[in-house]
């Protein structure tokens, strides 16, 4: 039977404020599933024209699918969010690119005609589920030297990337990090971030973290406005003595969730839903697990090739800042300046935080806002590195583009 692939659009995206993982973090006593449930509910509230029964799939990502991140979250969170029982769901995992993969998976289904509208998102509560919780790596990885021992420790892979690209110095990464904090603070001051945040009620019973009782999370907790180069220079390099990677030039350990509505363009238009971005192409690529931070390079190459575009066609970049060195490795690859104004205009994960499997949709939500404000830009990308040596890139077209 002949079929036509359908255009896929990003309708809307929201996220929780991101928190710091750990006993003093805002979400220490908040369940992971509740975080993502509240995002789904906000999407429905923001799009009252969407009959929830029209949602064909709920794809939710989490890296550690245990406890409140387990139990086929896509299904259980749908029920908890009050979606009709007829709406199915599943869980998905590609570590840091979980939410991104949720989006591309449902996008594939929409293009194929299996879905009209889907929810895609992710959650990671790294306080309740520290990286590596319950993992059981096959001993052959080490005995057969399939990967280096450092491959499982993301900070070490970042140090490895510095080794590979010695021209990316600690000075450059720290400078990048300071700019990320500055841009994020400015984006907050300009009100660019808050509109897509879902306030989350947070309970605290231990006075160690501050006032007890119920509170409300309305802003990202990890932000460190006013960060200086001097301040960063003094930080420890926990992954290697005299190394380069610090808590200051990397994303922290965070809690948070995101969710987006992805739809076929014709259905979105028919229902009067917003069309914020149009999907052009996406690609995932594998690299050596020891230097997973380089993953976005081949992923972007692949995606551009599929789209028939060149890097010069890309007017806006949302690059996940797992590590500054990983961002700079991509920019260097394409000869883009460290402070290029097209890159991470609102700052990035170094400032906001990076709750692993949730981050992909944060990049998209921010790119969507930038598209709206910058109709002269036609294409943008969201890209991120992924543990165990992968990268993912999604190329988006700006529906507000004014050019021809």
């Amino acid at each position, binding site marked *: 039977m002949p079929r036509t692939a359908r255009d896929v659009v990003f309708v809307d995206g929201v996220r929780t404020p991101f928190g710091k993982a750990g006993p003093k973090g805002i979400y220490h006593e908040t369940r992971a599933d509740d975080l993502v*449930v509240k995002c789904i509910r906000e999407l429905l509230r923001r799009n009252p024209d969407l009959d929830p029964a029209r949602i064909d799939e709920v794809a939710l990502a989490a890296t550690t699918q245990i406890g409140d991140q387990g139990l086929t979250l896509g299904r259980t969170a749908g029920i908890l969010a*009050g979606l009709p029982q007829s709406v199915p769901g599943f869980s998905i995992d590609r570590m840091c690119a979980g939410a991104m993969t949720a989006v591309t998976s449902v996008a594939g289904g929409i293009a194929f005609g299996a879905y009209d509208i889907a929810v895609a998102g992710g959650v990671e509560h790294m306080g309740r589920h520290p990286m590596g919780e319950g993992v059981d790596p096959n001993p052959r990885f080490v005995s057969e030297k399939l990967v280096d021992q450092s491959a499982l420790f993301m900070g070490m892979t970042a140090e490895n990337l510095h080794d590979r690209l010695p021209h990316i110095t600690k000075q450059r990464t720290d400078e990048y990090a300071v700019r990320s904090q500055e841009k994020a603070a400015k984006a907050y001051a300009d009100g660019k971030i808050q509109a897509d945040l879902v*306030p989350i*009620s947070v*309970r605290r019973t231990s006075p160690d973290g501050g006032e007890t*009782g*119920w*509170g*409300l999370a*309305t802003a990202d907790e990890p932000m460190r406005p006013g960060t200086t180069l001097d301040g960063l220079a003094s930080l420890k390099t926990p992954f290697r003595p005299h190394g380069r990677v610090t808590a200051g030039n990397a994303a922290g350990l965070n809690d948070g969730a995101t969710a987006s509505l992805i739809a076929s363009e014709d259905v979105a238009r028919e229902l009067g839903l917003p069309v914020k971005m149009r999907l052009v192409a996406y690609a995932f690529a594998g690299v050596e697990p020891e230097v997973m931070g380089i993953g976005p390079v081949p992923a972007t190459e692949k995606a551009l090739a599929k789209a028939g575009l060149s890097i010069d066609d890309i007017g806006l970049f949302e690059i996940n800042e797992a590590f500054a060195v990983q961002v700079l490795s991509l920019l260097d690859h394409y000869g883009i300046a460290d402070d290029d104004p097209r890159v991470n205009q609102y700052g990035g994960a170094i400032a906001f935080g990076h709750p692993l499997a949730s981050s992909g949709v944060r990049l998209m939500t921010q790119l969507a806002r930038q598209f709206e404000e910058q109709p002269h830009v036609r294409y943008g990308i969201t890209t991120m590195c992924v543990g165990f040596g992968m990268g993912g890139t999604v190329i988006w077209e700006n529906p507000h583009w004014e050019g021809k």
Partner: protein
Amino acid sequence: MSTTADLLKGAAELFPDEVVTQAHVRHLDLPQGAGKFALITLDNGLDHTKPTTFGPQSLANLDAAIDQVEKEAAEGGIVGVGVTGKPFIFAVGADLKGLEVLKRHEDAVAIGKGGHDVFKRLAALAVPTFAYYNGAAMGGGVEVGLHCTYRTVSRALPAFSLPEVFLGLVPGWGGCTLLPNIIGADRAVSVIIENSLNQNKQLKGQQVFDLGIADAIFDGADFLEQSLIWTASVLKGTTEVVRAEVDRGEAWDRAVERGRFIADGKVHGAAPAAYRALDIIAQAKNGDLRQGFDAEDQALADLIMSGELRSGIYAFNLVQKRGKRPAGAPDKSLARPVTKVGVVGAGLMASQLALLFARRLEVPVVLTDIDQERVDKGVGYVHGEIDKLLGKGRINQDKANRLKGLVSGSLDKAAAFGDADFVIEAVFEEMGVKQQVFAEVEAVVPETAILATNTSSLSVSEMASKLKHPERVVGFHFFNPVAILPLLEIVRGERTDDAALATAFAVAKSLKKTAVLVKDAPAFVVNRILTRFMGEIQNVIDEGTPVETAEKAVEPLGLPMSPLVLLELVGPAIGLHVSETLAAAFPDRFKVSPNLAAVVKAGKRGFYVYDSGKPELDPEVAALLVQGDTVLTEEQVRARVLDAVAQEIGLMLDEGVVAEAQDIDLCLITGAGWPFHLGGLTPYLDREGISERVNGKRFLPQGVASVPA
């Protein structure tokens, strides 16, 4: 230190065992840039199975929290104050244990004033206040929210009530005064009087909103977030809160009248709480809150010192605690699994039992009887009742299919009961018949099967005496209507073993019944007391007192129905049968009334006709009555009846029919619907001096269901 703090400190010293609620103050930035907000969380630090309550120290904590936010509000540091609870619980009101220890009227006044003084401060803050009813809210929990400027409620809230009148109090921390001023007197009467007296009926979140108690309602999933967003919009003026205007005209008076009518129908003037609450509601019409609060303080203190409240709390604890952990039940690990139930007989009682077992145990239930027609009728009854449940939406089609599939009938006991674990007989009340039934059943059931009898007055030991395994026979006495009255008297025969008894208690628990362990004594507990009670009424009628006088004599007790209406409900024939059993056992105290026998013989179903809408003595019954010429006054009748009952209960306790007077009361409350304000009965007999007069001693020590010495 403020006078309120002093007051509460004094009260706290009287109640060292208080489970203390903290009032945490946390600050947050409201959405939409609406400003800094102080949110007070009421939390006793325990999980949701231990709901948050207010004792004096808890009130002092809230007082201190208000000190803090009052200062911040006055200084302009915050734009509003909210109050909410821990997960699933808002707050469930005063700690009843704290009331039980109070001995002096002035201490009781302090409790009322303490609550008022603290809660009132919320209304007096320089900024608007918001209550977020996130979960269960009762009594003082509801009232703390009523003092706030605005309220939101969760759609997931399962229980919301002002249960004070149910216990024997008034909503005395603002409830009686504020609620009618917020939602109007008629709705307030529904909440404060009607629901309370209707077995403490609870409201759900949607009803709280629909009644106008809450200004906004949000789903449970993100209730607090949405409440705070709403708060921000109210404070910024983008949301306007509109409430229905309260009708302060005649409607208010009519509402109070309706309340009195409801109270009369339930307690017949016998318990003061509802009437005190209505007096305050009536007074609240003038909108003078201060005057209302003063009246609440007085009413609260009077009632706290009353026997009715102490009895109410005692009764509440019996039902909630003793009813769930029956005294004298063997270790539950001895209970055998019950995977199939047999019911001998397919009459109305047997069919009701089959329905109950199928619904609660969800195991196959087989009815047997002597012919196919009876079996079909019994099974048909059960299937019809299941269809009714389906029609009302109480169960879905799958469940209806399942339940119908579970209930079947058979003429072949061997096939029906060969793999049953629990067989109950509900056949004709005659020892010979029952012995024969049990012999037949024993021949076909597994070695370990329990044999239960629903007899209301025959000896369980005698019924078991001819069996090979009498140790597996247990009495399992339900009360009519089976689906409504919670009591199940579990009777231990002389040879009943612990395994049979433990199984009976386990089954009772699955059936959601209140089980009380009873010795194998004639008519057990409820029927023996009721028969003695009714017997004395019948005796005075037989001796010459007019029926009407005899009936009115016990009205001041506030029983759910008059003795002769009860007789009608039970059925005169059954009443006669039980009185015959008891007369045979205790001829000195029980006798068979010739008039009752005549009524039964004439085939009458009761003493009354209802042609006029009210009960009136049936002329045909009146014609049957042969009365003497001794006419007693109501007081004389009442004294005679209560003396008789006090004597009977005393004898039952001496015989060891139950472990303690508490079990007698629990039986009367859950098996006969006797009211909380009597505490069942023994607290009333104690406080009226009847126990002392008849038996020379109280049933319960001073301080149990009464003000401590």
